[in-house]
């Protein structure tokens, strides 16, 4: 029997995998950046559940605000849609 | 005095938790079911903020209970209350601003409200 805490963790991990898949699959780069934000958000949550607050704060600081900002700037500077 | 076999404080606590669950769930359903960005934004932001307020209130109440029960000696419970209050304050400051920025951005980006007949903002801008 899976305990409730394990269940929470399983769902969060599934969410990480799903959002990572969205990141790869999305052709619209701004949506991919949004999905990446969600991915790092859930990753931070996972670190949090694994009782690693140190890493969770680092992931929050870098993953939530700064990487998204950098990606947005990069997309702004280049083009929005991935084409190949 | 007790309500449903609980002390009034505990009853309030569980009630708050219930409200939190229900409203967060409503926010999620609204996000999924509503037709366009603006209605989704409205549902999601409003309900989840409201739900989160009640969750935070429940936590604060929980800290209060522990603090009172320990004869005001359990400083951890007190810190819980203060920090949760700070988190709530952060949430209350950021959520509406973010929602405003998103709504404004979507409007500027040219997303039309579905089923809307008049768009006064657009008329004003023009």
């Amino acid at each position, binding site marked *: 029997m899976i305990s409730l805490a394990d269940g929470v963790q399983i769902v969060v991990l599934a969410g990480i995998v799903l959002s990572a898949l969205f990141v790869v699959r999305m052709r619209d780069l701004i949506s991919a950046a949004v999905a990446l934000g*969600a991915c790092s*958000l*859930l990753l931070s*949550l996972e670190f949090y559940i694994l009782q690693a607050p140190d890493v969770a704060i680092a992931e*929050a600081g870098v993953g939530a605000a700064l990487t998204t900002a950098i990606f*947005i700037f990069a997309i702004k500077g280049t083009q929005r849609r991935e084409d190949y | 005095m007790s309500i449903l076999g609980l002390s009034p404080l505990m009853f309030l606590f569980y009630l708050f938790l219930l409200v939190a669950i229900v409203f967060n769930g409503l926010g999620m359903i609204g996000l999924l079911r509503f037709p366009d*960005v603006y209605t989704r934004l409205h549902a999601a932001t409003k309900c989840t903020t409201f739900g989160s307020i009640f969750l935070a209130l429940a936590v604060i109440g929980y800290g209060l209970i522990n603090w009172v029960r320990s004869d005001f000696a359990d400083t951890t419970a007190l810190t819980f209350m203060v920090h949760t209050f700070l988190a709530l304050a952060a949430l209350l400051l950021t959520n509406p601003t973010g929602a405003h920025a998103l709504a404004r951005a979507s409007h500027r*980006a040219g*997303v039309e409200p579905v089923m809307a007949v008049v768009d006064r903002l657009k008329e004003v801008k023009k």
Partner: protein
Amino acid sequence: MIEDTFLVVSGFLVLYILGASIRLAAGPTAPDRAVALDTINTLVVALMIALGVAYYEVIFIDIAIVYALLSFITTLYIARYLEERNVGGEAAGETTGTEGGA
């Protein structure tokens, strides 16, 4: 005892997060996805508070504060980008003339 109640609440919240990520995947336009992200942010902050009580660690609430503040910046950046561009994002035909002002 009460900690288990918070665990139940967090179970609900995590399900809501999964539900919101459906909108993240399906959302026809980028603003929809941004709204979904914003919702997930709020839910995660709530979840962090709930789990913080469940584990009974004050520092975990601190992370919730950090996250509430930082996720807001993400939302702002996405909104800032969307303000300038059309939703369809057909980059070829677009001009960047709106930037010239300030």
